[in-house]
């Protein structure tokens, strides 16, 4: 048998993976290797596979992902810094049949928006909060975030985070898991294909729980910031595995009882 040529393989019937149709053609503004892009695509895949385009309202934060609305072809609202869960609360209450999610970074969700995060979870709003935790303020140029690790350098902790004066890194997923309003709290990653596939399964569960009106779903994605951390993308992922994952361990923190 003749050896298969490249042309023989790349036929439509042999397609194994291509980016979601819900991703627009706009080139994402993220730095090379940034986990936001992978997280966006995983989310878009779920929305496409679950046929949710016409039912979804997404809320974007202030932070690097503020322009997320340019990349996924669904209706979006852009919130003020930290307020996405408040917007999502109203959207879901007024249109209970829609799929509503917020997409927030650590500065947005765990610093300025802490009150909105906690009270939205405490009310058990039937929304998904997708929390990208890279331990730094990316958009404004690499300042210390509430999730910055102890000793970690940033532009506002140039000698490393000193917990005696700057406080300790905050584990938001563990905090909201204590609230009766949350039904599903999990911590995932997107730096490997396995991680991205697990995140996809987690988002699918969140869609199911939102349909079942089980309460707030909170998915943290421990991610990287090569530019803010001043590393190459590959180095940043390695650093994340060695330093972020031990402090923010991956896996489910709270799962609802099966119905």
């Amino acid at each position, binding site marked *: *048998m003749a050896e*298969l040529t*490249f042309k*023989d*393989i*790349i*036929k439509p019937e*042999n*397609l*194994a*993976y*291509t*980016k*979601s149709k819900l*991703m627009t053609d706009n*080139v*994402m503004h*993220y*730095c*090379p*290797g*940034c*986990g*936001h*892009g*992978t997280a966006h*695509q995983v989310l878009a895949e779920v929305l496409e596979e679950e046929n949710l385009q016409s039912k979804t309202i997404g809320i974007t934060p202030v932070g690097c992902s503020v322009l997320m609305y340019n990349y996924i072809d669904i209706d979006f609202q852009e919130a003020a810094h930290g307020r996405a869960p408040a917007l999502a609360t109203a959207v879901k209450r007024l249109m209970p049949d829609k799929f509503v999610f917020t997409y927030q970074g650590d500065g947005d969700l765990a610093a300025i928006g802490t009150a909105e995060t906690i009270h939205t979870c405490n009310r058990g709003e039937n929304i998904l909060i997708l929390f990208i935790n890279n331990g730094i303020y990316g958009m404004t140029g690499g300042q210390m975030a509430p999730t910055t690790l102890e000793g970690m350098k940033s532009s506002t902790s140039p000698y490393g985070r000193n917990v005696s004066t700057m406080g300790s890194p905050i584990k938001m997923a563990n905090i909201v898991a204590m609230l009766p309003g949350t039904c599903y709290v999990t911590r995932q990653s*997107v*730096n*490997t*294909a396995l*991680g*991205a*596939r697990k995140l996809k399964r987690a988002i699918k569960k969140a869609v199911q729980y939102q349909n079942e009106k089980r309460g707030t779903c909170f998915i943290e994605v421990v991610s990287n910031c*090569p530019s803010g951390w001043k590393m*190459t*993308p*590959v180095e940043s*992922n390695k650093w994340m595995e060695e330093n972020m994952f031990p402090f923010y361990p991956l896996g489910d923190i709270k799962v609802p009882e099966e119905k």
Partner: protein
Amino acid sequence: MAKIKGAVVIDTERCKGCEVCVVTCPMDTLALAVEVNAKGYHYCYAANPETCTGCANCAVVCPDGVITVYKIKVG
């Protein structure tokens, strides 16, 4: 024994050369090019295309969605 052959199509102009796909690939199929694209990035390409099994790990992890993967059973 049935064998799986894969192939990747890479939109090199949209690639930012982050190299995440290269380290993810279990078959050492991918590498960064010496040349750069219009944006100045050393884009990724299939340096050893014959090793590709179409597992799609590279495409799943690519932050910019520039990789399309095909696979076919042979034999």
